């Protein structure tokens, strides 16, 4: 059970990759998990229909923030069409830890934000 906080999760949480904001993002999306208040913003810079640069910002538990950090590392070079096909299993494989039903929402928050942004949904009102 100690697996949940495996070293790489803590490492991504303590030293997040690609955390911050872009000067002039092509895609920007922000959402919260109303249950626990975790927040994620994802910004993308595009080169044609490929992702040139992905960054995130947010606050919340180690699982939600580490997942966002890891996800941004995976995105560079991916097409928007490929992003639309990312699923739950992709995130679970990426995290590599056992996630119970309660923490699944934490793990999937960044993917939810990313896909909403890529599909061009309206920003959730602040």
């Amino acid at each position, binding site marked *: *059970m*100690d697996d*949940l*906080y495996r070293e790489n999760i*803590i490492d991504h949480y*303590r030293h997040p990759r690609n955390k911050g904001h872009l000067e002039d993002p092509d895609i920007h999306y922000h959402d919260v998990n109303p*249950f*626990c*208040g975790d927040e994620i913003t994802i910004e993308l810079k595009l080169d044609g229909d490929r992702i040139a640069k992905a960054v995130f910002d947010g*606050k*919340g*538990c*180690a*699982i939600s923030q580490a997942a966002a950090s890891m996800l941004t590392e995976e995105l560079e070079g991916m097409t928007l069409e490929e992003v639309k096909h990312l699923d739950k299993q992709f995130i679970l494989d990426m995290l590599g830890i056992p996630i119970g039903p309660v*923490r699944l929402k*934490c793990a999937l928050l960044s993917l939810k934000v990313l896909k909403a942004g890529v599909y061009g949904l309206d920003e959730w009102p602040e």
Partner: protein
Amino acid sequence: MTLPQSFKASAIMPTVAEIRKDFPILEQQVHGHPLAYLDSTASSQKPIQVIEAMNRYYRTTHANVHRGVHYLSEAATTAYENARLNIARFINAPSPKQIIYTRNTTESLNLVAYSWGRANLGPGDEVLITEMEHHSNIVPWQLICEITGATLRYVPITSRGELDMEALDSLLTEKIRVFAFTAMSNVLGTINPVEELVARAHAVGAIAVVDGAQSVPHLPTDVQAMDMDFLAFSSHKMLGPTGMGILYGKRELLEAMPPFMGGGDMIREVKMEGSRWNELPYKFEAGTPAIAEAVGLSAAVDYLRGIGMDWIADHERRITAYAWERLSEVEGLRILGPGPERRGGLISFVLGDVHPHDVAAILDMDGIAVRAGHHCAQPIHDHYCIPATTRASFYIYNTEEEVDRLVMALYKAKAMFDL
């Protein structure tokens, strides 16, 4: 009517080890560790006496109440009404007619806000609540103020997590029609001076509505001595089943109030052009009620009475003082709210910059159940500028050894997060 007998003579002081034998759920292992259940503020566990009372009711007594003339309907009605009497005596209500069955504290508070509020509030009137309320004692008042045009005001809290009594003085004007407050905060653990607050409300002609969700399970309650106008509490936090709550009210107030919900059992007469209401308490109890749950709550009341509310309050003071001391030793851990001397059996804290959900998940790995989040009290967390806290809470079955395990697991969490 005779009162159901308590399960054991209260002359003999119980021990926690004896009490724990009555709670089968506590015997289990969680993730390879004995369960340490430190989340009774969210919901308490149930003793076999409660589980068996409900089981026995369904095996031998169940039918609908107040309807049939057959044997079982009478037996069910007797069990249901005896439970009401037993609950009335537990809080020293003058009459069982003043005990309204609801689903939970939330419904009890909504009943007062909608039924009393719609009949008594209007533009220019003010409703006073406090910053330390649970959402269930905030949102119904927000809604009723929107409907009636009354204004909602909040008593602020001090840095020690207590009500700001000076601010209360200036807020409590003749415009205040109702002052609704918690007897014990579910986040800060603060025990409020209920009698004094009720007296101050009465001094300006306001009624006092007390949220007893956290106090009734843990402290002796006497609605007459405390002169409360309304008291709301839940069965599931006091060893009873879920789906059952109580609203106590002063008789003249309840008599004057319109019904909250319409349906069967709450009417005296229904004609096409209108209806007349049933007498108390049935005016407020529309539809088939939670009968087995009433029987279960009554068994819980017997159990609490058997142990003694004074013993329970003492036990919780002891264990909370111990937990306070041990948690204060943990570097980087910050406890919210007042010191152990004016606090009920719960401690909410923040551990460095580790998110409370992570703290709770790490504790869970060691079989320790705590609550993490905003505990349905966002205004308190806003006051302290933190999104969430971790909360450990204690009841009759908790031990100092469980507190030690909690502290050990927190050191483990610190190590995992390099704190």
